[in-house]
């Protein structure tokens, strides 16, 4: 993975020092609440229900064991012994003290981490495919381009006060695992007719109150023009994006209101004027690529026979392998998911003990690297098949081996009303209840690939509008109600879920979910997935049952 040079290190240290000064000025009353709000948000600091919440950047989800130990230390020293992984591959601390945040940033800087631009109306952390560089369906590894974009976005002087937040995601594989169609800009590495690799550029996607699927603005962009094209889009957005209404300020609204044709004309005109000054040279790309060279894989890893044997002997192990590991491009290796969706713990949360233990396991089994995923789990990307059994045993002891990857209990869930000051409704307790109702693993595995996403308010941090089953918490006269949607997807055939009907009471949510799953089990065709069935039959069969039972 990318290692900081002196300039990178100096920059994050100076940023931490700058934030210390800003915090001190605020505490002395020298800058207003409003001003400090903008400054702290650009450093990932929200003021929440109980305490500030600090969001730390996980650059395109890639972290190492040393950084995990630091997160554990921060959780222990400054928080209540845990942290939370987000859908954009970042890490959140829910209980820091404002006065201590500058110290936390210094701690982070000591391991090449920071909280720069993890919130606020600016260019956010770039996210990517959690299987980048190891998956079998890859056109090219997106990580070097993510790093190039990370550097370009970091402290970009012109685009620090955008109309609204701005998120970029990059995918290099045929299967989109990074929800690129639901980002302000989505980039796909693609091959053109001449066999050269460049980018397909999408713009105007986004979730939140007005979920919209991004559209292609440039079917093929040469790599050398990556930054000039991004800059052209950002300049047009910065100049013309709406600033009169924060709910209409995302680029998706600008694209929608001006029309794709007019918007892309503006971008093209701007781009042609700047592109020759902002070319990425091949040497720079190669130098960054070198930082993502494959680790030292063992040539004879596939000759191991224990892996096949142990799967036959141990059903629990083979189930875990089936659900929580993925194919790897190198024979004899697999990628292993660490489930952060144990039945009794809030989705995406990890304790300091788990963080430390995972760091040790990463060192032993996966070249010291750990990735966070869009669905709030972790991955060891490079595990030798012979190591999977001991790894599984140790993960199991840490409650990180629930074999539920991509199943109904692998829920995406925001912190909800328990922690977030924006939320209208609780999520963690509902997730727990759904988990309890789906505690039969055979039933869960029979249902198969069902993605449940649950957000505590319409800001949609947990991407409920693209969940196969989406659950949205709403407030009705001070009471928590939940709006269900069906048929959403954030993958290749991205879709916004359709509303099932009127919102339902909190104590009815779990029953509604199990009713929906029962309808699926009864009416599915042979190998039909849940999403395929919803597409085939529409929402009515589900609606009838859910509201009949209510």
């Amino acid at each position, binding site marked *: 993975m990318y290692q900081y040079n002196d300039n990178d290190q100096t*920059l994050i240290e100076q940023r931490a020092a700058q934030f210390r000064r800003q915090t001190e000025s605020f505490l002395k009353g020298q800058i207003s609440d409003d*001003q400090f709000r903008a400054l702290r948000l650009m450093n990932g600091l929200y003021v929440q229900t109980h305490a500030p919440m600090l969001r730390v950047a996980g650059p395109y989800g890639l972290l190492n064991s040393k950084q995990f130990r630091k997160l554990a230390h921060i959780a222990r020293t400054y928080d209540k012994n845990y942290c939370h992984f987000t859908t954009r591959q970042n890490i959140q601390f829910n209980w820091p003290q404002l006065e201590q945040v500058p110290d936390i940033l210094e701690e982070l800087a000591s391991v090449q981490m920071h909280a720069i631009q993890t919130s606020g*109306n600016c260019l956010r952390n770039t996210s990517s495919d959690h299987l980048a560089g190891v998956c079998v369906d890859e056109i090219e590894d997106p990580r070097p381009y993510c790093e190039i974009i990370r550097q*370009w976005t970091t*402290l*970009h002087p012109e685009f620090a*006060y955008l109309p609204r937040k701005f998120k970029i995601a990059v995918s290099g594989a045929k299967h989109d695992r990074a929800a690129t169609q639901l980002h302000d800009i989505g980039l796909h590495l693609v091959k053109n007719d001449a066999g050269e690799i460049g980018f397909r550029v999408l713009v105007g996607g986004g979730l939140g109150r007005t979920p919209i699927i991004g559209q292609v603005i440039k079917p093929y962009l040469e790599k050398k023009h990556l930054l000039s094209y991004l800059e052209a889009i950002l300049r047009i957005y*910065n100049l013309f994006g709406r600033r009169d209404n924060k709910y209409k300020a995302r680029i998706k609204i600008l694209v929608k209101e001006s029309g794709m044709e007019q918007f892309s004309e503006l971008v093209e005109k701007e781009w042609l004027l700047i592109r020759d000054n902002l070319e990425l040279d091949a040497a720079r790309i190669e130098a960054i690529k070198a930082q993502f060279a494959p680790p030292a894989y063992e040539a004879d890893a596939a000759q191991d026979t224990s892996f096949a044997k142990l799967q036959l002997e141990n059903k629990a192990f083979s189930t875990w392998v089936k659900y929580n590991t993925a194919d790897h491009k190198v024979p004899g290796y697999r990628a292993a998911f660490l489930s952060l969706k144990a039945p009794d713990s809030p989705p995406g949360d990890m304790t300091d003990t788990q963080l430390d233990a995972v760091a040790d396991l990463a060192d032993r089994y996966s070249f010291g690297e750990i990735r966070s995923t869009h669905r709030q789990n972790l991955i060891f990307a490079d595990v030798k098949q012979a190591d999977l059994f001991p790894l599984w045993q140790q993960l199991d002891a840490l409650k990180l081996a629930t074999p539920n990857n991509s199943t109904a209990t692998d829920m995406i869930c925001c912190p909800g009303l328990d922690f977030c000051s924006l939320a209208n409704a609780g999520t963690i307790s509902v997730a727990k209840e759904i988990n309890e109702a789906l505690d039969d693993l055979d039933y869960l595995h029979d249902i198969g690939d069902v993605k449940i996403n649950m957000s505590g308010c319409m800001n949609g941090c947990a991407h409920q509008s693209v969940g196969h089953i989406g659950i949205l918490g709403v407030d009705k006269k001070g009471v928590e109600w939940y709006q269900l949607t069906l048929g959403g997807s954030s993958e290749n055939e991205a879709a916004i879920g359709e509303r099932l009907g009127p919102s339902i009471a909190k104590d009815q949510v779990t029953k509604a979910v199990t009713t929906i799953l029962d309808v699926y089990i009864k009416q599915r065709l042979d190998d039909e997935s849940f999403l395929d069935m919803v597409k085939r039959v529409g929402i009515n069969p589900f609606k009838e049952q859910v509201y009949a039972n209510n």
Partner: protein
Amino acid sequence: MQIIKDKQIIDDSWSYIADDADLKDGDISVSLARWKKDKQMLLKSNSRIGVRIGPADSVEDIAADLKDIQLIELDFPAFADGRIFSHAWLLRGRYNYQGEIRATGHFMRDQVFYLSRVGVNAFSLEKTEDLPVALSNLNDFSVNYQKSIVNLR
């Protein structure tokens, strides 16, 4: 009144003339609307001329006049209006404006570093007692990932 210009605290010689006030001698700046309306009269005067631009104005509107304008004031109605940053970039990077670009209005001293990197070389702060700190804020970072407008070419 003092301002920062080219990384020094200096006395300011300019006055802004409101749209309904009479023009006067000396270094004066006017709104873009007034510039468009009274351009010929302003060009005949002995004054050095500045034009004040807000976020909603288009920099393109004065691109052809830049040789006659010695000061452009980029006026922040609110610190979060980031259009100002693109205006500065366009003035320097696209229209090659060589005169003074000054940030005025409601911006924060924590923004002067970014502003300087998009081509703003003078800063008129709301509180003059903030000038020394703002001057030091120009050195908040010694390293950068993007080309500054100052060394674009």
